[in-house]
């Protein structure tokens, strides 16, 4: 009866083609980072962390924009399809944001000789990670889909409000985080290509995860209906 339903992973050819493209792009990005991009004069090999760190940071910012946008869409339409996108983007965004903080910390240890400092951009990024974590904790603990979507949307919009603070932190609060440093053309190209490759990979993760979330919601509904039918039959 339900055997033909897609089990989370979409079967469309375009998605699998995009997966192949993302894998090839990631492989090429790694080649560019480690073999083509020149060694930076001051920091040496450790500077290559920047290619990963910046890509993760951009992906986490795009994720929270998707979470906030879909949250607003849900609050306006009250349609759970918006919330499926919001949940999938929140999960992937949480991972990207965590990797931003960890790779940034590893870079800071070499550049600033400290793992962490309460610098404006670092602090606002940590706040975003706390908002992502809160969103996921809330989603794990609420069973009612519309209540979960409503509260998740509010947290998503709160995270969205943090985006301008993160982007402008270095200008508004004069922190020590580097702002668009001067780069060699090869280095800039590597950075952009790396960001694009990771963005495509994480976008695919969001698409796959959205299918799973949508299926889980449908299964919840079917299980509830079955339970009601069985109770009516026996009652």
């Amino acid at each position, binding site marked *: 009866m*339900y055997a033909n339903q897609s*089990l989370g992973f979409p079967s469309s050819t375009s998605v699998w083609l995009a997966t192949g493209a993302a894998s090839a792009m990631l492989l090429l990005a790694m080649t560019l980072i480690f073999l083509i991009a020149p060694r930076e004069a001051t920091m040496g090999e450790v500077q290559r962390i920047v290619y990963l760190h910046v890509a993760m940071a951009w992906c986490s910012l795009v994720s929270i924009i998707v979470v906030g946008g879909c949250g607003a869409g849900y609050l306006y339409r009250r349609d759970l399809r918006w919330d499926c996108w919001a949940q999938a983007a929140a999960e992937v965004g949480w991972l990207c944001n*965590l990797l931003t903080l960890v790779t940034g910390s*590893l*870079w800071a240890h070499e550049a600033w000789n400290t793992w962490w400092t309460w610098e404006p951009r670092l602090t606002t990024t940590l706040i975003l990670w706390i908002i992502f974590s809160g969103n996921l904790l809330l989603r794990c603990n609420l069973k009612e889909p519309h209540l979960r979507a409503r509260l998740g949307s509010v947290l998503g919009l709160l995270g969205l409000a943090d985006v301008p603070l993160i982007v402008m932190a270095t200008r508004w609060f004069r922190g020590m985080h580097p702002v668009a440093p001067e780069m060699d053309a090869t280095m800039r190209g590597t950075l952009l290509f790396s960001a694009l490759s990771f963005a495509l990979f994480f976008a695919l993760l969001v698409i796959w*995860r959205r299918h799973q979330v949508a299926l889980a919601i449908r*299964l919840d509904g079917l299980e509830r209906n*079955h339970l009601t039918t069985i109770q009516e039959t026996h009652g």
Partner: protein
Amino acid sequence: MISLVIAFSLAWLGAAGFLGWMGIQNSKLHIRLQRLEEVSSGAAQQTSGRHRAA
């Protein structure tokens, strides 16, 4: 240099972990789907048995 290795390893571990976790979620959905099929086919058999008895 060790920071560079740790950073990239963690990124790949994170991505692989996420994919693995998605695989686990997929298995859970599969089990739920199978259980639902069993329950629905059992209920259908029970209903047709009652109809026949009536």
